[in-house]
C-alpha cells in the first residue's frame, strides 16, 4: 500500500490512519494506562470504537449520507452525555423528535412505493429495512440510494477493518 500514490482510496486510508492514530494517542494519554479492570477495558473499547467510527466518517468528509449520519449521531450522543450531566432534557427531545420525523418520512415513502410499483419493492422491503438499520443514515433513503450508500459503506468498512487489523498486528508483535 503506497500512501504516496495519488489514489483516492489510498488517501482515504492515510486520512483514516492519521486520524485514528491521533485519537488513539489521545485516548492513551488521557487514561494513564490501567487496563486491569474489565470495566476500564470496556470503557477504552467503547472510546476506541467511537474514535474509529468517527475517524472513518470524517475521512469521508460528509460526502456520503452514512458518514454524515454517523457524525451527527456521535455528536448528538456526546451532546446527550453532556446534557445528562447538566440535567437538560431539551437536547434529548429534539433528537428524538427529529428521528421520529425521519422515520415517518421513510414509512410514508415506502407506502407510496408499494402502491405505485409492482411487486418489485415488495420483494425487498423486509431486507431493505434490515439494511436501513445497519447502514447509518439509511432510514430516510429510497432503495436505490440505499444500495449506493451500502456499497460505499462496505468499501469503507473493509478499509477500516484492514487498517485496524494492521495496527493491532503491529502493536501485538
Amino acid at each position, binding site marked *: 500500500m503506497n500512501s504516496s500514490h495519488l489514489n483516492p482510496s489510498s488517501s482515504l486510508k492515510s486520512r483514516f490512519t492519521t486520524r485514528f492514530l491521533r485519537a488513539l*494517542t489521545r485516548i492513551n494519554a488521557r487514561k494513564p494506562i490501567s*487496563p486491569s479492570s474489565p470495566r476500564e477495558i470496556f470503557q477504552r*473499547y467503547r472510546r*476506541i470504537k467511537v474514535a474509529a467510527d468517527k475517524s472513518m466518517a470524517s475521512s469521508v468528509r460528509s460526502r456520503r449520507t452514512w458518514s454524515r449520519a454517523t457524525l451527527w449521531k456521535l455528536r448528538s450522543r456526546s451532546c446527550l452525555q453532556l446534557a445528562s450531566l447538566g440535567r437538560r432534557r431539551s437536547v434529548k427531545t429534539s433528537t428524538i423528535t427529529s428521528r421520529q420525523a425521519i422515520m415517518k418520512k421513510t414509512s410514508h415513502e415506502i407506502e407510496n412505493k408499494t402502491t405505485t410499483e409492482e411487486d*418489485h419493492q415488495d420483494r425487498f422491503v423486509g431486507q431493505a429495512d*434490515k439494511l436501513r438499520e445497519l447502514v447509518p443514515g439509511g432510514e430516510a433513503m429510497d432503495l*436505490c440510494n440505499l444500495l449506493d450508500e451500502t*456499497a460505499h459503506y462496505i468499501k469503507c468498512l473493509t478499509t477500516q477493518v484492514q487498517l485496524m487489523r494492521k495496527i*493491532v498486528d503491529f502493536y*501485538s508483535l
Partner: protein
Amino acid sequence: MEPNTGTAETRSNGTASDGDDVAALESLQFTDEIHRLISATTTNNASSFTALLELPAPEAVELLHSPESAKLMAAPAPNIEDFKASFHFPSNSGLIERAARFSLFAGVGNNNNNTSNSPETPSNNPSANPQKAVKSEPAETESSEPLVSDPTVEKRCIKRKDREKKVKGSTKKSKTAMNESSEDAEKLPYVHVRARRGQATDSHSLAERARREKINARMKLLQELVPGCSKISGTALVLDEIINHVQFLQRQVEILSMRLATVNPRIDFDLDSIFTTESGSLMDSNFPSMVMPLVWPEVQVNGNRQQYQQQWHFDALQQAVWGREEVCNNYITPENSLLSYDSSANSATLHSNQMKMEL
C-alpha cells in the same frame, strides 16, 4: 433483421435518404436527413431530464461520472420512437455499414460487449449487424451533438444491450409495439424508455422499469463488492448476503477495537511528532533491517534504543522510548497472557512507523 428492414422500406417516407446516403455518407449529410425527418414528423422536443437519470442506470459507474452527458441525452432521446416509426432504412448494406462506422452508431455495438469504450464501437460497428441499423438510426439523431453524444449513446446502447433480444423481437413484429411507444413518446414527453414487446407502455411502468434496472445495476455492483456473492442468483439471497457481510464487518470493527483496547495500553503513541518528522525514504531503508531484531524481549531495550538514537535522531521517539520503559515492565505479564509474544516498546514505535510507511 432483414425482413425488418424490408418492412421499414415499405413504410418509408424518407425516400430521399436513399439517394443521399449512397451519394456521400458523410455524417453531416446524414444528420441533415435526420433533421429533415425530425421536422417532418412531429416530435416532441420537450423532454424531461428527470427521467433521464434512470435511463443510463445499467452502468452506474458511468452514471456517476458523467451526469451531464446523461442530461444531454434527453433531448434527442424522444425522437427514437418517432424515427422508428417513420424512418425507412435503405436496403443498401454498404450504406448501412458505412453509417455504422460513425461513432454515433455506438449503440449498434452492444452485442460486442462494449461497456465503456466508445472509440471502439466505431470499429466494431462495421462488423456489427446491419440488422441493428434500425435501432442505430436513433443514434444518428444525436449527431447534432457529436461531442457529447458518444458517452450518451454509450449509455443508451448499454441500456439497450440489456434488452437487445427483446427489442429485436419487437422490431421483427409488425411494429405495432413501436407505434405504441412512439405514440406514447409523443403524448408524454418524459418517456424515452423503449417499450418492449408485450410490455405495458404507460409512463408509470416505464419509469418503474427504468428504476428497477437502476436498482439491478447497483445490486450487481454490490455483488462484486461482497465476496462470494457473484455466484448467488436471486436478489433476495444476494441481499441477505450483503446484510450478513455488513454485520460481519461491523462486528470485526468491534472486535478489533476491543483488541486495541487490551493490547495497547502500554504503548504511548507519539505519533504526531513521528508523522511530522518522518521521511518516507528514511523509513523505507531502515525499517526492514531494523524490524527483525526488534521482536525481542525487553531485556534488549537498551541496546535497541541506542541503535535507534544513532539511526533516527528523533527526539520525540527517544522520549517516548524512555517513558515507555518504566511502563513496560509492569504490563508484560498481562500482555503475555493475551498475546503469544513479548514485545519491546521500541519495537512498538518502530512498528507504528513501519505501518505508517506501508500504509
